[in-house]
Each structure stands twice: as C-alpha cells, then as structure tokens.
C-alpha cells in the first residue's frame, strides 16, 4: 500500500435484484486530499458510498483503512462513525422537527451528573460550532423552518464535529447558492489541512475543478480510472464519464423556442400568494421556453406553484388559452392542460413505495377520474413507452420507485407529466442532482417539446443551462418578479439582473 493512503476499497461488488450496482469497483483516498467521485446517474457513486458507510453490505470486496486492522465490515452507519467515517447525503437526513442544537447532538447529548440532558451546554456548544464554521444562525431554531441550505450546513457541521477522518459529501452543493458554496469550500480546505480526507460527489464540474485534488471516475458500476486533477481536462472527464467522446456540450444551440406565433397559452395577471410571492404578471406563448432566474429563495418556485395552483392564488386572474382558469387544486390545472415537475423531488414528487408504472400513470389517472380506470394493458404500454423514451434505468416497470437512483426518479416524474400530454409544462429544477449526460438529455427534450408546440417554464440554478434552453427569462428577486430579459442574453447580463443591477 502506498504511503499516506487513508482508505482503500478493492473489487467491491454489490447486486440488487435484477441490477448489478457495483462491479469490482475501486476507490483510494489519501489523507488531506479532496477527492471527487464522478459518474453518471446509476454509475454506482451512491452505492459505493453506502457500502463504505454500512448502509448496504457489499457482496464481495475489501476495504482497508489506515489505523484499522483487517478488512472492514461496517454493518451500520454507527460502525462507520466509530472509525471516523462521516457522511452528508444528497438529501438531508436530519430530524426536521428538532432544533439545530438537538440535531447537532442527537445521540450524544451532553448530560448532567443526574443523567438528564444538559440543554444549556448543548446550546452553547452548538452555537460555538456554528460560529466556528461562520454559519450565522440561531441554534434554537427548529430545523424545518430553516432553508434547505442551512439544513445542509447543519448536517455538515454535525459530521465535522464528530471528529471524522473521512468526510463524505454526497451532492452537498445541490441546494446551496454561490455564497454558501464558497463558505463550504473554505471549510473543506481547512479540514483538508488538518489531514481529513474528503470524498466529494457532485455534478458541478466547476466545483470539482475549483476544490478537488484528484478525481475517480465510475461508469456502470465499474471503476474507470483515477486521475490527478491537472491531468484531466473537462472534455476528457466528461468523455470518461460517458464512455464516449461527447459532441461538445455547447452543440445544443440556443435557438430553442422562438416566440412563435401570437398564441398566448397562459396569461397571469396580478397573481399572488400571501407570504410567498408578490403580485406578478406572466405570459407565455405556444412553443416558447421561458426561464425563471433568481437566487435561492427569490420566489422562483413560489411563482410557479401559484400558477399551477399548488398554492392557491389569492389575488389576480389566470387565463389559459384565453379562458379564465380558477384553480382551487392542482387537478383543475391538470385538466386545463398543465403539468408541474416540483422542485422538492422527495417531498412533492416521488411516491416511493409505488411502482414505476403506478408513478407514471398517476397524473393521467387522476385527470381521467376515479371511475375511468386505465386498463392494465394500457398502463403497461404507457410505462414501457416512457421507460424506453427517457431511458429510465429500472429492473422492471413494477420496481418500487424508491429503489431507483435520483436521476431516474426524476425521469419517472417527468414521464408522469408527459403522459398527460400537457400544453404547458413547468419544470422546477429538473436537473438538480443529475449527471451531465442526463442534463444534456433533459435540455434536448425540453427543446424538442417546445418545437412540438408545448410551452415550458424552466427553472434552474445554472444560468448556463437556461441560456441554452430559454428564449426569454423572468428575473426574480425577494419574492417578486422584477423584470424580464430577452434577446441577447449572456451569463453576465443575467447575473447582473439577478444581483439587482438594472434589469431591462
């Protein structure tokens, strides 16, 4: 074993019913390095991490760690924590109903001599931890009232405080804005200096090149290679992930969705929802792709929720195809021809225990009504069609949705809406936590739908992605729509509009 190696995984194999998730995968991590683990959805990144941390038990393979005797078998995350492996997962796994301090110390609460929990000490220590990490927050706040970003930071703070030698960050930055990402990176660098090994899983290439020292690439559950960052330019990285030379990503032209015709599909006037979004006007034409841009919490999601009727609008009118639409519940909007892929996949999208088939036909079935059940053959046909069309990786159409990887779950939910053949489709962060190959696919799909006459609202935190797909953008700031940009959009012009420069 070479010097300085912290952890080494060899020939790791793991199978699930019908799927080989890991096939002789490898991973080597050295002390004091930030190591990126890259791969497409379903490449096995999450699985190899779960094998390491004891969430899954591997079928075969060896794991050795510096300072720990023999082959390591972690049977639970607690086992992993004992030897200094801590994980912050893609989706925050904390207790939303407890305070930040309680979440930081859950399972290891400071106690008084009497055995009672010492709340004062807990709060003081918690505040100290958060202050050290320069996260300004009151630790008595209940976690679910904090933004997703803060929740993520709390999860990381908890891991950091547990004296970990290996910190695994699985998509930690998906829900953070740039400022918070910078803070996290500063934290990661300081941990690195202390000799902590950090395994960083992300889909943001920029971030990889900004902070990482080494990259391990996986594909289809197999180890592709390990490269020092300097030896692997972006194009090569993407090629390694996809297993082919990618026709340059920028080949998708920003010609998508010209403002074709004058057919207005959806028109909102003075729509608002108290406490989340101030009154706004909005108009979209047939075959148009409109982007909503703004910082995290600027009201992007709230605006589309209001249009869709997930949050009932309290003022204003909404017209669809020129007719007024009074949406009391999402079903009214669906009947009028809307579709809505929500931002929080876990909470608002997935019905985890139901099968892929049931998840796909759900919205169509709801629109048809309870007494007009789709025949089983039709259901199967629809499910197969979309599994094929969107290349959903699943063992079968009867597999429970929760067994699929994140990106594939997202595709299933997209299929749910495509099934209903909507005229107007809202996509709220459809590509969050999705690998670059699928991202490009999603973007191509959006442009394809638009060319077939569908109107699409597209929300993404990545401006680049929106520039590629949208012909017009609405700029959101502090819960209000502050302007629109059209025509020659560049990254700079959009950024300045978001930041509060002069939005034209």
């Amino acid at each position: 074993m070479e010097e300085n190696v912290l952890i080494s995984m060899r020939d790791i194999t793991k199978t699930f019913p019908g799927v080989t998730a890991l096939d002789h995968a490898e991973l080597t991590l050295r002390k004091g390095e930030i190591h990126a683990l890259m791969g497409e959805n379903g490449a096995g990144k999450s699985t190899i991490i779960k094998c390491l941390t004891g969430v899954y038990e591997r079928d075969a393979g060896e794991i050795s760690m510096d300072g720990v005797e023999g082959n390591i078998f972690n049977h639970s995350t607690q086992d992993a924590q004992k030897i200094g492996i801590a994980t912050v997962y893609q989706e925050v796994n904390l207790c939303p109903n407890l305070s930040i301090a309680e979440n930081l110390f859950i399972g290891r609460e400071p106690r008084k001599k009497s055995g009672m929990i010492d709340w004062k000490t807990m709060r003081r220590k918690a505040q100290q931890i958060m202050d050290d990490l320069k996260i300004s927050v009151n630790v008595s706040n209940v976690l679910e009232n904090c933004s997703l970003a803060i929740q993520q930071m709390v999860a990381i703070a908890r891991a950091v405080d547990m004296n970990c030698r290996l910190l695994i960050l699985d998509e930690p930055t998906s829900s953070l804005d740039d400022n918070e990402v910078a803070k996290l990176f500063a934290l990661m660098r300081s941990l690195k200096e202390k000799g902590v090994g950090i395994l960083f899983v992300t889909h943001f290439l920029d971030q990889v090149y900004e902070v990482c020292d080494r990259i391990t690439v996986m594909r289809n559950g197999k180890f592709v290679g390990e490269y020092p960052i300097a030896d692997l330019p972006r194009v090569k990285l993407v090629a390694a992930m996809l297993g082919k030379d990618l026709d340059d990503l920028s080949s998708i032209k920003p010609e998508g969705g010209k403002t074709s015709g004058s057919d207005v599909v959806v028109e909102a006037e003075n729509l608002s929802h108290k406490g989340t979004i101030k009154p706004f006007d909005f108009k979209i034409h047939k075959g148009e792709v409109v982007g909503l841009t703004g910082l995290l919490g600027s009201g992007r999601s709230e605006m589309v929720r209001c249009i869709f009727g997930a949050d009932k609008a309290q003022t204003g009118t909404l017209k669809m195809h020129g007719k007024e639409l009074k949406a009391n519940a999402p079903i009214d909007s669906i009947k009028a021809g809307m579709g809505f892929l929500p931002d929080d996949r876990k909470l608002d999208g997935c019905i985890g225990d139901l099968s892929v088939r049931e998840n796909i036909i759900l919205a169509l079935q709801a629109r048809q009504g309870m007494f007009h059940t789709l025949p089983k053959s039709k259901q199967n046909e629809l499910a197969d069609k979309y599994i094929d069309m969107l290349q959903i990786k699943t063992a079968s159409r009867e597999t429970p949705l929760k067994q699929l990887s994140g990106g594939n779950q997202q595709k299933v939910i997209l299929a749910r809406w495509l099934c209903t053949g909507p005229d107007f489709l809202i996509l709220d962060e459809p590509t969050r936590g999705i690998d670059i190959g699928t991202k490009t696919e999603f973007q191509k799909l959006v442009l394809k739908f638009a060319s077939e006459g569908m109107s699409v609202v597209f929300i993404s935190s990545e401006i680049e992605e929106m520039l590629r797909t949208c012909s017009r953008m609405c700029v959101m700031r502090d819960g209000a729509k502050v302007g629109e940009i059209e025509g020659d959009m560049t990254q700079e012009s959009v950024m300045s509009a978001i930041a509060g420069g002069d939005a034209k």
Partner: protein
Amino acid sequence: MSSVKQNIKKITKMRLFFPIFCMILVLLINLIKSSAFFKVAVNNGVLYGRLIDIINRGSEIAILAVGQTLVVAVSAGTDISVGSVMSLAACGCCTMLAGYGVNSATSLAMPMIAGMIGGILLGGLCGAFNGVLVANLKIQPMVATLILYTAARAVGLVLCNNQITYIRYEPYKYLGNFIPGVPIPTAIFITAAVIAVITIFLRKTSLGLYIQSVGVNARASNISGINSKLICFVCYLICGLCAGIAGIVASSRIYSADSNNIGLNFELDSILAVALGGNSLAGGKFSMAGSIIGAYTIQAITTTLLAMGVSTDQAPVVKAIIVILIVAIQAPALRAWMEGRAARKLAAEKAAGQAHAGKEAV
C-alpha cells in the same frame, strides 16, 4: 432438488405467505388437540362444527378489518372508535325498531330493513365525523377517533334510554343466526358481500391506487391531481359504514342492543387483523386479503382457547403470546436475520466443501 428449493423460496417471498402460514399453523394446532376440529355436521338442518363457528363468529372482525385496512393505508393511523360505533349503530337500530323508551318490542315501529339501514348510516355518520377531523382538520387519527371511542357507546346508551332494548321479533335474529331453510350462518353471507363489494370497487375504480398513493405521500399525490383530503375522508366513511354493518350483525346475534358489551375491544382485534395480515401500520401499500385472513386467524385463536377450556379472563394472556409470535415471524428484522444466517451457513458449507475437495486432490 434445487428447483424445489427455489419454488419454496418463491412461495415464502410471496406477500400473503406469512398470514396464510400463521392461519394454517393455528388450525393445525387445533387439529392435533382434537381430531373433531374439522368435522362439520348437520344438526337441525343447519351446519354445525368448530370451523363453521370460527367463520361465523369472525364475521364482525372481518368486516371491521376491511374498513380498518383502508384507514391504516391512507392515514398511517388507526380508527379506534369502531367498537364503540358498532355499539351505537346497534342501539340506533334497535331504538328505531322498538321506539324510544320501549324495553322489549314484539312488534316493530318501522320496517326492519329501514331500521337496519338507519343503524348502518349512523355508523357512516360517525365515520364521516372522524374523516372530517382527520382529513380536514389534520388531527392525528388516534386522537380524532378517541372522541367517538369514548362518546359513541354513551350516546348509544342514551338512545336506548339507559336500558337494554330487546327486539323479540323472529326475523331480526336471522342476520346473526340462520335464515330458515339455509344451512349456512347468515353472517357469513354478509361478510362475503361486504368483502365482494369493496374488492370490486377497489379493482374497478382507481380508489385503491389513490389510497396507496395518498398513504405513501399525500403532498405528491395532491400535486399529481389527487384530492388527498377527499380520499382520506372516503376511507374513514367506509370504515364507519363497516362498523355500522358489524354492529347490526352483533346486535342481531343477541336480538338486542347491549350498549356496554357490543363491540367491546373489537377495535383492537380489527387493528390486529390488519397487522397480522402483513400490512404496515405506517400506511401506504396494503393487502385486503391479508387483513381478512388476519381477522379469521384472531377468531380461530379466540375460539380455540375457549374450546380448550381457558377461562375468558385468562384467554387474553395466551392470545397475547400467540400474537407476539405471529407478529415476530413477520417482522422484517427477524426475517433478514434468519436469511442472513442461512446465507452464512451456506457459505460456510461451501468453504468446508472446497477445503474437503482440496484435501482429496492432495
């Protein structure tokens, strides 16, 4: 041989395997204890025997389990008022038939069928009340149904003017006993009808899909166009109606409305039936067949204990032990552990075999 093994494995993986297995186990124990267990005789023109007794007496639990399954699936909570609602439905029915304040009626104040439907609707009303509390006011199911758990029985007593109202009218006894000329207990037909109606409804409409979807993730279901509140309400309504029907059957057995005793502790048996059927009390996916098998298993245990001469006071203790065993067999943790043990054993055997082969080669 390996195909036999595989087949066995396939069967044990099936969802209903354990509920059926437990049921058979209970019946087998009975058979060993007394060989006359499965004997069905004809006495006075009606079927007679312990097996018939179990199916007959298990009717109320089975009917309750149908409604309870839906409630558990949709709201990840239980309706603990069903026993009391049974009693209220029975009291309502008897009071309507006898007239208020009449202690013992030999002639009816209104057509029998109207009184019975009235009693069932009273159950439905209770279900609707629970439904509004849970679906619209978002009160936890246990707390919401606790209200009627305490109140319904008392309301029934008030309806009966604080006495036991007897209906000494022969046809009223048919439901809980026999219709002249038919050898099979009437309650069995009623249960079969309830199960059939619900099953057909779940199969032919998308209600089953909706219930499971709402049970797994109500928010996501709502965004997908399902009226989560309405679906939740409907489940509680159905549960109330089922309790009403069970109440009428129970009342007919004793041709009276004994407010204090009808449906006593039945809510626990109905919840247990759902659990024994392999359904998760955390909601979501459900198996109606499992719950019904669970209901008859409970009745089989009860009947067996009474037949073995265990006194009514001590029976619950033995019942509890049996239930612990059955639930433990089905617990995923225990099953995973046993499977893991079998796998390790297999691996050890393989390793031993290989070592042996290696030695022979030398």
